[in-house]
């Protein structure tokens, strides 16, 4: 047996051992012994061993129901999204560090606050890196790319795939930067960054294997910083070398970008501002994105490469349960109350002066007003998140989740009524109290749904449709069409979306809803969304948002019609249909007004039509696709018996099926979901017990 054949065979056998199975090496050696007498024996042996080395070892004791696309989709999509999520969310968080910076004049008595801001930014960046490192490790343990045992193969796969996916995730930002500022693509710098991160993986891994976890964390942070510093310096160098005086401050280019201030550059006169402006134009987004992506990637790759050692396949993976004790419920109520009070305070106390300052031309080109708006959105989300925690496991989650769009709608409506008055404040207080009370009441009244395959499809469709109802009011006016017709169409579509959301809520309410239950919420949705659109719609808006949303809504309806379908075609359809919705969702998203307005100025005056909105397309489409993947996963539990008359226990055909031996339908587990029950089972075999979910996947190729 050749050396390569032997290594491949040993590698394959190790995978089986790692999967908790007996070592099959001797058996396979016996088969190879027979091949020795065959013509072309060397090649056949090599093929025999290579085929085994490339295949996965089957899990012991349980079926792995998910296909390779589902298994790989989650980790790859997470890696793909990390750079963009970090830039959007992390960038907004870091802006909080700018609050102490009230002046840029060195002679101002409060100038020392600038350095407080620098310190805050650096501390927040380091904290973000450690958090992402830990998150990456957790993801690597739960979603490893390979099931191969720990070794060079696993390390290489984890390192290479991780950096490649992170690189791909940076592409939209590179495109945006190129389109907006005309900066040459930072191919060389990003490649250097990726190579350095990949090379750091085995070093960190070795430290982890030596049991020195803290040292490994330190190595990871340092490696991420060094790789980012070198990568960015190489990236911006061609642009900055043309700027007079910039070379002298080369080591501080990256710190300048990180703290977003020219004060850190030790250059005379106004040169530091000039250099800093060029730095910002060349790659404002790079430091945060690369340093965070490197930290996350190192955590992920090292954990994924050694996960087989930490968690053998035969051992159950420990699940981290979301806290649901009384103390956490109380904490949830506290968060909800803080969010609500903050929102009310922002609406009634902070928005009026921000309005006045902006009207007087002192709001920093509306930045103050927009910042206030974002803080209001954050407060709304905090309220909804608090309610979700407070009502956790008391019933279905959707009542608490729906408080977010309800409060956002109230926020928008209040914003359109002009400066807040006493009536507006009263309406705001009433809205919060009503939302919280209704969420609590509905959560406790409605039975908690059974987690069954496809069970969450109606809920997801409902939430998506409800979220889309916010879109019409957000779009502003154009002069593309007569007012009355367009407003009518906008109201019609808003009411339609609301009706769809209401229908889905009714469908999600019980496992087997009748017609009355299904349509019970439709009037509520129609009135809510239609009324909202009627109050806030402006002429011509439909021409912009209907093309963006129509494909997604169509696919949502298709999902509703065929909730159990798992076909690749539908998944691809959902991803593509979500593409046009990307700019819309980004435009109305929290954080985006500050971040996106600042970095991707529109070329056409319509932000959602602008070329730079490619970022939004990518982020939202991939995010939606990732979220929807879960809908097509099967439940990880024993198959439930089929209900009703199809579970025949009579004698089998002459040469056909045997009598059913499963549990009786009368005493079986929880009933199947609407989604599962709705799946037709063509060609079903009498006497054979299986779920609809099994039926749809029974002919999946290996």
């Amino acid at each position, binding site marked *: 047996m050749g050396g390569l054949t032997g290594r491949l065979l040993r590698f394959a056998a190790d995978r089986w051992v790692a999967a908790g199975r007996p070592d099959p090496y*001797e058996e396979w050696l016996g*088969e190879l012994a027979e091949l020795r007498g065959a013509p072309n024996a060397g090649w056949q042996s090599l093929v025999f061993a*290579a085929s085994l080395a490339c295949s996965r070892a089957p899990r*012991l004791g349980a*079926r792995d129901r998910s296909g390779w696309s589902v298994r790989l989709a989650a980790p790859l999509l997470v890696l793909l999204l990390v750079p963009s999520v970090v830039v959007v969310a992390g960038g907004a968080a870091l802006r909080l560090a700018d609050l102490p910076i009230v002046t840029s004049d060195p002679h101002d008595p409060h100038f020392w606050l600038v350095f407080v801001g620098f310190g805050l930014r650096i501390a927040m960046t380091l904290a973000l890196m450690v958090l992402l490192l830990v998150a990456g490790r957790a993801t690597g343990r739960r979603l490893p790319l390979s099931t191969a045992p720990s070794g060079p193969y696993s390390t290489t796969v984890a390192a290479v795939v991780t950096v490649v996916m992170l690189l791909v995730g940076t592409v939209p930002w590179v495109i945006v930067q190129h389109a907006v500022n005309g900066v040459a693509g930072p191919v060389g710098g990003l490649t250097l960054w990726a190579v350095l991160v990949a090379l750091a993986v085995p070093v960190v891994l070795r430290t982890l294997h030596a049991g020195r976890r803290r040292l490994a964390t330190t190595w990871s942070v340092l490696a991420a910083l060094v790789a980012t510093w070198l990568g960015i310096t190489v990236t911006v160098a061609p642009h900055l070398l043309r700027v007079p005086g910039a070379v002298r401050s080369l080591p501080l280019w990256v710190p300048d970008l990180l703290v977003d201030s020219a004060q850190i550059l030790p250059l005379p006169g106004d040169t530091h501002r000039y250099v800093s402006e060029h730095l910002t134009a060349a790659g404002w987004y790079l430091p945060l994105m690369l340093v965070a992506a490197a930290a996350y990637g190192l955590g992920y790759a090292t954990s994924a490469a050694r996960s087989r050692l930490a968690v053998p396949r035969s051992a159950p993976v420990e699940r981290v349960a979301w806290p649901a004790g009384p103390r956490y419920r109380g904490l949830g109520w506290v968060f909800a109350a803080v969010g609500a009070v903050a929102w009310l305070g922002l609406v009634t106390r902070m928005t009026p002066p921000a309005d006045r300052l902006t009207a007087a031309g002192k709001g920093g080109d509306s930045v103050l007003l927009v910042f206030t708006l974002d803080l209001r959105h954050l407060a709304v989300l905090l309220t909804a998140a608090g309610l979700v925690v407070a009502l956790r496991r008391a019933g279905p989650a959707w009542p608490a989740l729906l408080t977010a769009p309800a409060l956002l709608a109230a926020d928008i409506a209040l914003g359109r009524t002009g400066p807040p008055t006493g009536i507006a404040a009263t309406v705001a207080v009433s809205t919060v109290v009503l939302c919280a009370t209704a969420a609590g009441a509905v959560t406790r009244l409605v039975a908690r749904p059974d987690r069954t395959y496809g069970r969450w499809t109606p809920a997801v469709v409902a939430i998506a449709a409800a979220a889309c109802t916010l879109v019409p009011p957000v779009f502003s006016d154009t002069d593309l069409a007569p007012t009355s017709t367009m407003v009518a169409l906008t109201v019609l579509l808003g009411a339609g979306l609301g009706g769809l959301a209401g229908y889905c809520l009714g469908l999600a309410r019980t496992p087997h809803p009748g017609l009355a239950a299904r349509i019970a919420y439709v009037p509520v949705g129609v009135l809510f969304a239609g009324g909202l659109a009627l109050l806030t719609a402006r002429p011509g808006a439909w021409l912009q948002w209907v093309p963006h949303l129509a494909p997604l809504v169509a696919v949502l309806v298709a999902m509703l019609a065929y909730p159990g379908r798992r076909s690749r075609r539908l998944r691809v359809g959902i991803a593509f249909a979500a593409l046009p919705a990307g700019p819309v969702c980004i435009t109305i998203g929290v954080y985006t007004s500050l971040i996106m307005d600042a970095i991707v100025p529109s070329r056409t005056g319509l932000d959602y039509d602008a070329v730079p909105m490619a970022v939004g397309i990518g982020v939202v489409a991939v995010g939606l696709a990732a979220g929807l993947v879960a809908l097509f996963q099967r439940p990880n539990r024993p198959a439930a018996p089929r209900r009703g008359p199809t579970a025949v226990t009579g004698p089998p055909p002459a*040469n056909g099926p045997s009598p059913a031996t499963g549990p009786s339908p009368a005493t079986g587990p929880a009933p199947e979901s609407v989604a599962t029950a709705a799946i037709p089972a*063509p060609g079903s075999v009498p006497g054979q017990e299986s779920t609809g979910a099994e039926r749809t996947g029974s002919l999946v190729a290996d």
Partner: protein
Amino acid sequence: MSREPRITAAVATVLAAFLAEPDTARYGLELMRATGHPSGTLYPVLARLQDAGWVDAEWEEATAAQSTGRPPRRYYRLTADGVVAARRELAALHRALGVPGRPATGLA
């Protein structure tokens, strides 16, 4: 506890190969030739069928192997439950696919 395997195309082919002679024990290479599947497909299928209790495996007597100058083989054979289940699943598959005639159930 055994759990029924998914009836994939590969599993169906292996079951059909077993059912061609239900009482005969087969070793891996022999099944590879009978089904046309590569080793990386066949052995995971056999493992899953063993998990389900449809197939038993046993090592060849060492003396028998030594007499022919080769290492012992591991032989696989359908269990009684496996024969019934395999016939049932293949019959169901044929019906689902609308294949006319009788499937290869191993019955005369």
